[in-house]
Structures are given as structure tokens and as C-alpha cells.
């Protein structure tokens, strides 16, 4: 069960981190008038088109102790990113970023500007308008971002294998464990892992669509 527990720990951590950085990033992309906005949008969406192994390879290079950043993190802060849970989190956050940011950005861009302006005219700040008016009205988009990021992290393989390797109890996630078991011809264990993943993913998506249906009904 260890790979499954690790997978869900990773998915929870990544979804939490992505929500915290995804909402402000989506706000900036949706409302900024910067000329360079499209560059940020391109970078955010890169994981959608790149093979996961490419991102994994670059992360492995950047965070390896032979390179500046990896060396700095290890020697000054004592943090080793490659082949560790921290590496899995960093890689997954980057790889799942568009799955959190893009739905929230779409929700914000479709939000009626008249409602925002009404809030400003009532003397409310941007922050208060965001938290009291905008976010409660884009719940379906927020929920989509959360579920997509969570589900996508559960299903990762390439990035996590490249940066995390296959260390039991530390970086061996369910997807890697299934691959491992198949290679070792342990089809029963691979089948059990797969069935659990399929069942949990099905119920996550089922509750997402059920909740979204209710949310859409409210608004």
C-alpha cells in the first residue's frame, strides 16, 4: 500500500501548493494588461505539449548537485531535490500547473466585469472583491482546477520517474510501482494497484461532476 499512500500524499501536497500559487497567477494572466502576458501564458502551458520526460530531464539537470541550483540547495540549505519526495513535489507542481491555472483563468475571464465594477464602486478593494465576489462566483472553475491538478498528479509517470527515480517508500509512486510489478511479472499486484487507482480516480471525478452540477444549479 506504500506506493498508493505516497501517491495520494504527493497529490494532496501538489494540489495545495498549486491552489496557492495558481489563483494569483491566473488572476494576473486574466486581468493584467502587460505586453508580456503571452510569454507567461506560454510558459504555464508548456507542460501540455512537452513530453513529461523532457521536463523531468531538465529538472534532473537543474537540481543535480553538479549544477549551481542543486549544489546551492544541497550545500547551503541541506535540501536534496533529485531522487527525493521534495523533487517529486517540485516536478509535479510544474507539470500540473496548467491543469490548475487554465480553468481558473477561463473562469476569471468569463466573469462579468459589471460585477467587479459594482464592487469597486461600493468602495471595495481589489483583494476584497477577489475574495468576496469573484472567487465565490467561479467555484466550478476552482473545483475543476483542483480536481484536474489532483487527478493529473495521481496519473504522472514520466516526470516523477526522471526526477524521483524508483526508491521504495520515498519516490516509488503507484504508477511506477505498477510498471515495476509488470516488469517483475507480478501481474496480481500490478492489477491490484491498478484497480485501486481506477476506483479512486473514478470516485474523485464522479464527486467532482456531482458537486459541479450542484454548484452550477446554484448560480
Amino acid at each position, binding site marked *: 500500500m506504500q506506493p498508493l499512500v505516497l501517491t495520494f500524499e504527493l497529490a494532496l501536497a501538489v494540489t495545495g501548493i498549486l491552489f496557492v500559487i495558481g489563483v494569483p497567477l491566473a488572476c494576473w494572466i486574466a486581468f493584467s494588461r502587460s505586453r508580456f502576458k503571452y510569454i507567461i501564458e506560454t510558459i504555464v502551458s508548456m507542460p501540455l505539449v512537452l513530453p513529461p520526460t523532457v521536463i523531468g530531464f531538465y529538472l534532473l539537470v537543474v537540481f543535480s548537485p553538479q549544477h549551481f541550483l542543486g549544489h546551492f540547495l544541497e550545500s547551503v540549505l541541506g535540501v536534496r531535490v533529485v531522487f527525493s519526495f521534495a523533487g517529486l513535489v517540485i516536478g509535479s507542481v510544474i507539470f500540473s500547473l496548467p491543469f490548475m491555472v487554465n480553468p481558473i483563468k477561463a473562469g476569471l475571464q468569463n466573469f462579468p466585469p459589471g460585477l467587479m465594477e459594482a464592487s*469597486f*464602486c461600493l*468602495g471595495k*478593494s481589489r483583494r476584497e472583491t477577489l475574495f*468576496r*465576489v469573484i472567487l465565490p462566483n467561479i467555484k466550478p472553475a476552482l473545483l475543476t482546477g483542483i480536481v484536474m491538478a489532483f487527478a493529473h498528479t495521481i496519473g504522472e509517470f514520466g516526470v516523477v520517474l526522471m526526477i524521483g527515480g524508483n526508491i521504495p517508500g520515498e519516490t516509488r509512486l503507484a504508477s511506477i510501482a505498477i510498471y515495476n510489478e509488470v516488469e517483475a511479472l507480478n501481474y496480481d499486484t500490478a492489477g491490484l494497484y491498478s484497480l485501486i487507482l481506477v476506483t479512486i480516480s473514478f470516485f474523485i471525478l464522479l464527486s467532482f461532476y456531482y458537486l459541479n452540477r450542484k454548484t452550477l444549479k446554484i448560480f
Partner: protein
Amino acid sequence: MIKLCFKKQMQTPQGLEWLDIDLNIGRGEFVTLFGKSGAGKTTFLRILAGLTEPQEGYIEVNGKVWYDSRQGISLAPRQRQTGFISQENTLFPHMTLRENLEYACGSKNLHGSIEEWIVSMGLKGIEDQKPDQVSGGQKQRAALIRALVCRPEILLLDEPLSDLDVPSRLDLQDKIISAYQKTGLTTILVSHDLSEVFKLSRKVFVMDHGRIIKSGAPGDVFVNDRFSGKFKFTGQIIEIQKDGVLNIVTLSIGNQLSRVVATDEEIAGLAVGSRVVVAAKAFNPLILSKDESF
């Protein structure tokens, strides 16, 4: 006193035009901006509320400078606190009507005031409903309270009555008048309905192509120019029936159907669907009260 002097380039169906405004509005006045679509009325209000920035100019409201392009002053909408009501519904859909009003009050303890407004505007009993559960007129009444309850410097009404049916429209007109009498707020209404202008405002500014072309009391501005002893309506033919040597033409004029007798010569070249002008003169019309019909 509100001093307004600004220029703003705006995109209209006729191409780029300049909104060029220079006028003063007395404190506590109720004025109307009247004009065709694209004349710049909404842009005027948006500039005053701080939602659109002019190219250059100066805006001073009750002694405080809100905008001065030379000094680089431009207060954000939240610092201006205008009560702005547009024709679209801008009540927050996730809040009840009461929560919308409480949000407007913020930390100010104005709950007594909210209750008083709810009663006086006829929203008692539905204040805990969400906006999509009430009628268009009730939504606009709630929007009016929300704009007033945070005690703005000025009230800006951008055609708030245009999407309402006649009874709701008349009702909200009365509510606006009573709210104005209660608060004494300087109020600027955008409208292209003459009866509304006459009923609500003491002063009207007529706008055309981004400029004020006339101003004064509604009676002085409109009646002298438009007085005519002749009735003239535009309508559409929906049926032509032959009746002996004459024809009975059924017309749709506004929401009314009317039958007019016409000779063959008069309807020559006309068919069902043709748009026509129906004119009558040299008779004295009857004026009948319609109040009871509402």
C-alpha cells in the same frame, strides 16, 4: 458642486469620436443625460465613476479633486464611492438581497438603515432571496438601496429602468423620486425616454456625438421644439382587407393594433409588412386617464 471638464476618444458605430464635456452640476441636483445610443452618455458616467479614464481633463466633486490630468490625480473607483446602477443586473448572485446590502455597508454599522430601506423600498419578505429568485424590478430596487446605503457622494443611474415592463418602470421611478427626496443626493440619470426625463429631473443635458448640444429644464428643451398639432406614428401593415370600394388596413403601432380605412390609391404599392407613417390632423384629440388600467 460638481465640475466636469474632460475629453475622451470613444469608438462609436460612426467611427472614432471625441467625448468633449464641460459642465457644472449643482449639489443636490437631479439631472438627466438624454441622447441617442452612441452619444457618449454611458462613457460620461463611467468616467465620473472612475471606471474609464479620460484622455485629459478635470473632475471635482463637492470640493474634492477626483481627476486632474495635469496634476496626475486619478482616484480609483473605490475612493470615489459613487452609487452606480447600470441597466444590467449587478447584484452579486451568490448573496441574498440582504447580504448584498450588508456587503455594501462593510464594517459600518448600518443595519438599522438597511432594514429601513428594505421596508421603504417594498422588499420586506424577499430580502433573504437570491437575485435570481426575484423579479427585474425587485432586483433594481435592491440595486438602488445597495447604491444608497453606503452613502455615496453622487448617484449615477445608467438607464436602470430600460429593461423593465411599464408597471415596474413606473414603480421604480417613484422609488427613485422618494429616495432622492430622502437623501438629497446629486443624481445623474441616463435616459432616452422623454416621459422619464420629465417625471424625474429638473434639468436635462441633451448629448449628441459626444457633446452637450442643449441644456435646461425639460419643458424648455423639448416642448418648444417638438410641439405639433399633428399626430404622427410609425407602424407596420399586418393585414389588408377589401371591403366594398374601400380597404381596411390593420396596423401594428408600438404594442397597439389599429384599423384604418384606405382607398385603393392610398394603398397602391403597399403590402403586408410595409412600414408606414400614419398621420392625423385637424381634429381635437381626447385625453383619457390611464392610471386605473395599471
